[in-house]
């Protein structure tokens, strides 16, 4: 390592010996498994150990698999409905808890909003299993509302955080100026607050969408038989003989997440 000689020449205040090497190793460790996964999704053969040439075969196979089709549709449906409802609820909650004089119970409200971040998922999952079992047995209803409401609940904190951050960085004097120029509170909200808040809302919604799309544990416990999302379908498949079809599905899901996070990153950067 070059670091061993640095004490005698080229001393740098910011460098610590070996840290750069460890960091690079860490990045390699983070990306190597994902890269290998993506690579094998293009494998022509059905083996997940031997490379038999480039092919899009498994993407086609996954695309034509009826179970995958159903799971994809359900995943997107649940993620869309849950992220939109979570974002609306979180936006309202953010407006009601940010830039205000503190009132009694505010700390309890914060704790409740952030609860899904603190409680282990498996705990929430079995608690929901219990409660929804009671509701199912009394009403007999088996539909999607269970999945959607569970997803909406745990998406709320993820949507809430960027919206709140955006609100806190907003210039309060703009709204005062609007009020001074005869705008009613409702029009001030529509013409000033909402346009300024918009990037935060979009960012929150995208995070919520990704979180919902990726969820395994809660979905696994809440879903009725036959209500498989892509992650729960994959979890089931992992117990069987694995073919590169799983790799193809993973790569597709991965791409969606990366695109969403990239947009989120760009939106946040524009702000600062």
């Amino acid at each position, binding site marked *: 390592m070059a670091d061993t000689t640095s*004490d005698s020449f080229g001393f740098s*205040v*910011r460098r*610590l010996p070996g*840290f*750069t090497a*460890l960091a690079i190793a*860490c*990045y390699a*460790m*983070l*990306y190597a*498994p*994902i890269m290998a*996964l993506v690579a094998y999704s293009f494998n022509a053969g059905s083996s997940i150990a031997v490379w038999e040439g480039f092919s899009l075969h498994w993407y086609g196979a996954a695309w034509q698999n009826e179970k995958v089709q159903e799971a994809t549709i359900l995943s997107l449906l649940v993620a869309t409905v849950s992220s939109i*409802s979570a974002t609306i609820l979180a936006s*309202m*909650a953010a407006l*009601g808890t940010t830039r*205000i*004089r503190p*009132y*009694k119970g505010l700390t309890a*409200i914060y704790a*409740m*909003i952030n609860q*899904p971040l*603190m*409680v*282990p*998922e*498996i*705990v929430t999952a*079995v*608690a929901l299993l*219990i*409660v929804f*079992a*009671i509701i199912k047995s009394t009403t007999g209803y088996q539909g999607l509302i269970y999945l959607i*409401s569970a997803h*909406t*609940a*745990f998406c*709320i904190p993820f949507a809430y955080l960027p919206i709140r951050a955006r609100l806190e960085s907003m210039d309060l004097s703009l709204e005062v100026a609007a009020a001074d120029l005869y705008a009613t509170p409702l029009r001030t909200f529509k013409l000033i607050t909402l346009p300024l808040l918009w990037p935060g809302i979009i960012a929150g919604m995208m*995070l919520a969408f990704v979180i919902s799309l*990726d969820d*395994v*544990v809660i979905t696994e*416990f809440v879903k009725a038989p036959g209500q498989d999302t892509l*992650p729960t379908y*994959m*979890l089931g498949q*992992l117990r069987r003989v694995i073919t590169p079809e*799983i790799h193809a599905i993973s790569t597709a899901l*991965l791409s969606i997440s*990366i695109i969403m*996070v*990239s947009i989120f*990153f760009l939106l946040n*950067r524009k702000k600062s």
Partner: protein
Amino acid sequence: MSIGGESLSHTTDVKPQGTPRISGYEAAARKAEVHRNILLTIPALLVLVLAASGPLLVMLLYSFLAPGDYGGVVWQPSVDGWFRVFLTRDIFDDTLMLQDAHVTIFWRSIKLSSMTTVLCILLGFPTAYFIATRSDQTRNLWLFLITIPFWTNLLIRTFAIMEIIRNEGIVNNLLIFVGVIDVPVQMLYTDFAIMVGMTYVYLPLMILPLYASMEKLDFGLVEAGYDLYATRFRVLRRVILPLVKPGLVAGSILVFIPSLGAYVTPRVLGGGKNMMLGNLIELQFGQGQNWPLGAALSIALLAIVMVALIVYVRTAQRSTQAHG
């Protein structure tokens, strides 16, 4: 409304002495504002009560009921579930014994979570430091590269690890190719696999808060340390570490808590035999069919998490008090 009334006291200190009451107009405006804020927050809280906090209370209740024959509960009070968390009764002579399997699983959960946390610190600390010492232009890119795996599906990342450590996976093939080993080493379906997997999936949770602390690190202080004859190691131990401690504690909590409650990673990489708490809980709602025991185990897990969180909040408060 009591909420509005209570909060009036907050504004009294801005009034001149001798007039503790605020004007009627101000009080009314204040009350309306609080009403509005609460009304805005209620819908979100309602959903959370329905699908997050409320079910936890129901589960607490269930842990004190008797188990049904085929899952579910019988509506009669019982501490059997809590009793079975650590104890068992011999089938033949009815003597009380420690439930060895459960003790093992609790111990494995705590052990693997702790080791995962330590591994994440060892890898995450140099990485966070590396990012914090990049130039302003490249720093965001390095950070972004940490964020991507953070937002990538946990199942996919676990699957990716499973793929490379399996007997025919890249790691074994590489080791055989280099000549370190002749036959594949069984890594998958061991505690080691779970630990590696959890380190892999939770590493970004260590790096991000650590980086947030290091970004604020005043390198003038590092310079001062070197100026005062501290070697690199002593600057690290006496100057950098104490200053980034809040981030280190936050990162440790963020890794330890989900590790302790991990379900997917031990299920995929531990292969059924090497269960952790999350899998034990699931078992009670599946094959085990002892819902009160499952509920009690969940509450126990939650309690450990809460203790960890309280320790964290205490530490965080102490360090904010110390540094103003």
